[in-house]
């Protein structure tokens, strides 16, 4: 049975740990063995902290023996390398932060530690979370466990691949325009982006501060709810974390979708949608209807067509300001052979950042520069208001919206690297949710030619409970979440 340990859900593992039928040390060792066996092919991890993980496992076993355990105590987790972790490397997938050791923990990491988590290591990502394939990592690309010639999605591709490949029981990622939901869909796992403000961003290395949100990758919707229970809540260290009560997200999971009104915006089912993805969507709607939901496909969010432009103005603009901190003076890579201070700084940034990061800083600088601010940045903020209003109006009629997560299944490594705009189009169904600040989940929706795709459920602000409820009902109608990649 040891071979099954890496594929346990959080709920299953917690139950066995509490029964003392399994120790955290055994479980952690099983995961470390699995990482050693498959990660040379998948390359989900940038750093594995095995010794520290085993120490945390022993501490967790002590807590469990003392009947002092939470649902996450002793359960091994992988952390996207965009979250700072005290005493271990945080690179953000960038040469700029090669060798950087954070002096503090991100709030989400601290909350998991308090809950007794076992941290296995840090996962690969597109540099500074900019990308949709993990090919923008300065270190190496991560591979999709379902087909090693394909991308796992991004930017949290390492976290998604780790959970899919049985290299972690769950993982944390960050989602600015789809960076949790898109890789979750392409790797066949659950990925949840909470409402903006639900989870503290303290210690999340900033990309686009009005869009970034931390969330989990798990095997089941129930597991995602368990992780949210632990990481959500107001944090005085993040003034944009909402002072709003956090419910038990598992409480309503089993209530089903009978009588729920679910809208399907037509802009998310364009003619250009992959035929296989469309068939999975058709099935998903039938399943939800068969479980008693009222499905309405006569829904329009007309400004959706402008969302990509809004996102690729706002996110690079915020990034160009956030990434100004990498100057070679305080920490990180530092070029020192220039003739002047300015030459040092410009070479530090020219050499420390990769191609996509520089491209976005240039776009953002353009959108914010004199003469273009009104036409691009301010206009994008106004269209953002229109997009949010359309969502708000839809939620007066519907309890939740459903849509595909991605236009296609996973694409080949190298297929889109030469065309930035083609890469940006991967996020066309996920980024409107960040623009609106809404919660969204990707739940496995079956396979297209052997490759997983995802169903997206989008909810009202701070109504993650309904999102979980719909996703759980759909998930439990199938056995896709039990499938394992052929590694």
């Amino acid at each position, binding site marked *: 049975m040891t071979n099954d340990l890496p594929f346990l859900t959080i709920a299953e593992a917690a139950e066995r740990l509490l029964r003392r039928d399994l120790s955290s040390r055994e479980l952690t060792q099983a995961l470390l063995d699995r990482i050693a066996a498959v990660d040379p092919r998948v390359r989900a991890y940038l750093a594995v902290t095995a010794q520290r993980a085993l120490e945390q496992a022993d501490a967790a076993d002590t807590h469990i023996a003392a009947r002092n355990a939470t649902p996450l105590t002793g359960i091994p987790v992988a952390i996207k390398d965009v979250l700072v972790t005290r005493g271990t490397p945080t690179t953000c997938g960038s040469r700029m932060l090669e060798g950087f050791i954070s002096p503090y923990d991100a709030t989400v990491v601290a909350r998991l530690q308090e809950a007794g988590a076992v941290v296995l290591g840090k996962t690969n990502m597109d540099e500074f979370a900019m990308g949709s394939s993990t090919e923008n990592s300065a270190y190496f690309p991560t591979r999709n466990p379902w087909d090693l010639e394909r991308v796992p999605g991004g930017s949290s591709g390492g976290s998604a691949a780790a959970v899919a490949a049985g290299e972690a029981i769950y993982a944390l990622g960050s989602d600015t325009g789809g960076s949790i939901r898109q890789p979750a869909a392409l790797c066949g796992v659950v990925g949840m982006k909470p409402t903006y403000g639900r989870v503290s961003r303290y210690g999340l290395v900033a990309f686009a501060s009005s869009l970034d949100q931390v969330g989990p990758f798990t095997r089941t919707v129930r597991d995602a709810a368990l992780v949210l229970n632990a990481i959500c809540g107001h944090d005085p260290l993040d003034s944009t974390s909402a002072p709003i009560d956090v419910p038990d997200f598992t409480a309503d999971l089993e209530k089903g979708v009978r009588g729920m009104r679910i809208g399907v915006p037509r802009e998310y089912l364009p003619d250009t949608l992959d035929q296989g993805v469309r068939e999975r969507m058709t099935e998903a709607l039938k399943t939800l209807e068969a479980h008693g939901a009222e499905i309405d496909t006569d829904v329009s969010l007309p400004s959706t067509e402008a969302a990509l432009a809004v996102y690729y103005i706002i996110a690079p603009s915020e990034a160009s300001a956030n990434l100004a901190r990498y100057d070679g003076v305080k920490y990180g890579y530092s070029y020192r052979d220039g003739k002047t*201070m300015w030459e040092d700084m410009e070479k530090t940034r020219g050499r420390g950042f990769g191609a996509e990061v520089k491209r976005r800083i240039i776009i953002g600088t*353009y959108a914010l520069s004199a003469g273009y601010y009104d036409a691009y940045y301010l206009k994008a903020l106004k269209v953002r208001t229109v997009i949010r209003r359309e969502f708000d109006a839809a939620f007066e009629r519907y309890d939740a919206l459903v849509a595909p997560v991605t236009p296609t299944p996973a694409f080949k490594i190298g297929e889109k690297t030469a065309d930035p705009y083609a890469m940006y189009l991967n996020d066309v169904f996920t980024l409107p949710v960040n623009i609106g*600040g809404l919660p969204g989940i990707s739940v496995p929706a079956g396979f297209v030619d052997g490759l997983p795709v995802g169903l997206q459920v989008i909810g009202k602000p701070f109504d993650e409970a309904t999102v979980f409820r719909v996703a759980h009902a759909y998930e439990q109608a199938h056995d896709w979440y039990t499938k394992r990649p052929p590694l």
Partner: protein
Amino acid sequence: MEIGRETVLHLARLARIDLTSDEVSTYAAQLSEILGHFDVLQRVDTEDVEPTAHTLALEDVMVEDRARPSLPRDQVLALAPLTEDGYLRVRAVLE
């Protein structure tokens, strides 16, 4: 929208990023294409629409003015490439 090499060089200077000549050419072509896709924004009527900088209805978040420990100075300075007498050392800004 055609973006020339001079514009990219100007933006790179504003952003303090040294670009190679090849990068300048590549970004000029890619920016021209990407900005072309942004024209779709003009189709959305935003007359009398207020901008949304972020989606939370929070403003002027206040915190208690209370002293609390900060990160240990030696740990923070240990991350810096150049320090002197407990300070970050930088090269002359004015020459």
